[in-house]
């Protein structure tokens, strides 16, 4: 991968970042545009950028961006190093990790994929949920070293390019979050729950586990139980269930608020 692009931005480009990604501007000016900025800009582009911005964005998006792994990381700081090659969101990754490093910290601190969140680091909140070889797991309790050859999908890989996954769109529509910190984990979990239902997997609230109907049609209670490993402190649970139910059932779920008086 290319080295960091020279930080010289055109006036328009600088303005673009200043307007859309002010929190990143400082870094961009010093270090140049990297892949993370690129991803973010892509997202914003999908989220309805202004016309003049789109033109500039196009310019930025066609330029090379910096390598994904932190270039300043020195292998000298790795103890009991383990060579790891695996796939993240479809791209092959090779790096050496400290044997103690979790998948979560590897994603966040080495691969600049900070979408997966550290809410508890002990498997008690679900904010770090990612999908490994098709199944949802907790990246905080997964050693990176144990991921050799595996395929990891994170929140950054849920959308197909510029197109949101239906679960992502439904979360926006049904306001399935407030602060948004648990959201990456909720969404990875929800995407996997869809497949689990398709496979006919049962849950703790399934009426009769001996029935082998497949796929399973999920009631709201089923969705609630299956999503209970993802805590949301803001209390967006009913909205999360509504979002998932809408995608799962293919039927619109009404949004309910009412004004009286």
């Amino acid at each position: 991968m290319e080295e960091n692009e020279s930080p010289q931005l055109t006036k328009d480009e600088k303005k673009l970042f200043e307007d859309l990604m002010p929190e990143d501007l400082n870094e961009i000016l010093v270090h140049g545009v990297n892949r993370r900025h690129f991803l973010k800009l892509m997202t914003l582009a999908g989220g309805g950028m202004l016309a003049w911005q789109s033109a500039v964005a196009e310019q930025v998006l066609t330029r090379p961006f910096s390598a994904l792994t932190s270039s300043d990381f020195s292998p000298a700081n790795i103890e009991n190093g383990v060579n790891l090659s695996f796939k993240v969101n479809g791209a092959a990754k090779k790096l050496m990790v400290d044997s103690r490093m979790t998948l979560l910290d590897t994603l966040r601190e080495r691969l600049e994929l900070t979408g997966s969140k550290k809410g508890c680091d002990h498997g008690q909140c679900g904010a770090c949920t990612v999908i490994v070889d098709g199944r949802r797991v907790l990246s905080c309790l997964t050693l990176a070293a144990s991921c050799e050859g595996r395929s990891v999908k994170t929140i950054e890989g849920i959308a197909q390019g510029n197109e949101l996954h239906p679960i992502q769109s439904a979360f926006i529509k049904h306001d399935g979050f407030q602060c948004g910190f648990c959201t990456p984990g909720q969404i990875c979990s929800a995407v996997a729950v869809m497949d689990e239902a398709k496979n006919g997997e049962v849950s703790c609230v399934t009426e009769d586990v001996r029935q082998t109907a497949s796929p399973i049609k999920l009631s709201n209670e089923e969705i609630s139980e299956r999503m209970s490993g993802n805590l949301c402190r803001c209390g967006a649970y009913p909205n999360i269930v509504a979002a998932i139910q809408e995608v799962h059932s293919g039927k619109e779920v009404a949004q309910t608020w009412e004004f009286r008086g």
Partner: protein
Amino acid sequence: MQEKEKVTGTPVSRIDGILKVTGKADYSTDHPVKNVAYAVLFKSTIAAGRIKDIDTAAAEKSPGVLSVITYKNAPKLNLKGGIRGGSMLQSPDVEFFGQHIGLVVAETFEQARHAADLIVVDYEKKEAKTDFEKLHQQGAKPKDKEDEKRGDVKAALDSAEFKVEETYATPIYHHHPLEPHATIAEWQGENVILYNSSQIINGAQNAAASTLNLKPENVRIISPYIGGGFGSKGGQWGNLVLAAVAAKMVNRPVKLALTRQQMVNSVGLRQRNYQKVALSATKDGKLASLSHEITTHSAIKEEFVEPCGDCSKVMYDVPNLLISYRVVAMNMILPTYTRGPGKSTGSFALESAMDELAFKLNMDPIQLRIKNEPERDPSNGKPWSSRTTVQCLQEGAKAFGWEKRKAQPRQNQLGNELIGYGVACGTYPAHQRPSSAIVKLKRDGEDVTATIELAAADLGTGTYTILAQTAADSLDLPIDKIIVKIGDSDLPPAAGAVGSVGATSYANVVNDACIKITDELIARSGKQFFTRPTAAQLMVSEKVDNIQTRADSKPPENAEDYSSHSFNANFAEVRVNISTGMVKVSRFLAVTGAGKILNPKTARSQIIGGNVWGIGMALTEESVVDPRWGNFVTRSLGDYHVPANLDIGTMEAIFIREEDKFGNKLGVKGIGEVGIVGVAAAVANAVFNATGKRVRELPITPDKLL
């Protein structure tokens, strides 16, 4: 000229939603800072005493370690700078279990965490005050709270025909936002950038600057997204300045995140309260007296007392009133504001007692409340800017099917479950706070865009979205032409997102700025207009390329002539398993009168979020101290049960249409806090209606219903 449809008041989806669902919203530790070193805190394992010696040799020798910082080598900080809770490595004294006593900075997180485990501390222990059950009778008057008295409570109580005298207890609760408190500190010469989730951007800036002996302009707080706060990120705590200290000492940017376990004694808590409530009434339900005596605890050196008596001051028309507070200084982390501070816990006591009184009077609890509706604010005699309690109760009763409630408990059983209904009211004051904002307009041909800038915070409350809506309407621009920049202390100073003042203060100042810039455009045109043109029109017609202005807004001058509050009524349906005592809130309805609702979608989420908090308060959450050490035994999210998805049943929100023009220009009241007030009581009252068991000590776990 075509009138654009207003977007304010419509259910616009969050404009920051796309970043949140794709993992690209940056919270504290997500900001990509190069060459960052990692800091891990270590904490005291005694509750009181002094560090005799601290052996850092093994840690210092551990691979990758850059520095071990303790009171021995930490720079001198200003302890009166506004950082809460001490814990800043300024002395060997220990005042509570889990006080920060040092931090290790290393090349990697793994190295720092390991080295922190190698620290050996020798303590000189002192006797610690850790047992509230033993100490609560030693409570003294708080420094900033006088007893409030009206009439003669004792006489009224003595002569009353109907009375309730009970003590209600709530445990220690923790905020536990999903994002643990964390800071990245990066020095640039004399200036330091602190990426740090902050509900009060300027407050964090000032506290950090003052504590670090810097000028505010040397400190920049960056906090575009906040992973929940609920009060714990209102005031700022030691981690903010310790990250800056560490970064200075290792001459590199430093990332410092609290672990979940460290959260329990690092960033405040909601203190345990004993609340003795005595109500007396005539047989037709007119209240004769209300006394509400609160005993709680605070820290050894600093005092914080939740205002549990606030609801009792304003909810009911009662001639004889007593509200008192007593506080015990204990060796524990300083308590702090927690969602619906005082009101959520206080309303549990008051509204449970009202339910008990209604039961004794054989009166519908809704009728009892309506009977005692005050015409003016009984605490100060001011007229209400508006009050919706009765409407909330009546509309709620209709919508909830209150008539199906059985007056006597244990009358509604389905299979192995007892079903019960409960109601309780709540209130929270509404205020506008001074704030400033800049609006910038830019034209490209016919295309006009606006940027709104202010140091506001969005902790999931919807600030980005409601400000875009407000500006879009005020400027006459489509909402996707508005860019909202907040969460940065380099922007114009603004109120904090605390105490339900955020939406009110921010929306009003943005609206003022938009009006002002329109005025300026009109003035600049030098023309007279028959009807007032909009900013969007003027930008194009007057061919203005760029213009910006700043507004500094304050509450209206006569705002203090009125008592301005949000009000609600909460309705709960619970199902209690007869055998196991497990309770599920199967249905919950909150009816809220909170002025103008800027966005019903995000407002509903806020209300439901508060309700979920209240359900957690009522049923699952509890922080437990082992008094022998003063430590929390519930230090993980496996032990401290915030509600999970399956705990929450059907949640409904109704808003009362309300035009309140007195409190602030836009008639906005704020809803973040009121959503939790009254909820725990509604649930507890429903549990009584279902089972006949009155639980006066929260949470209502299965063991309490056997």
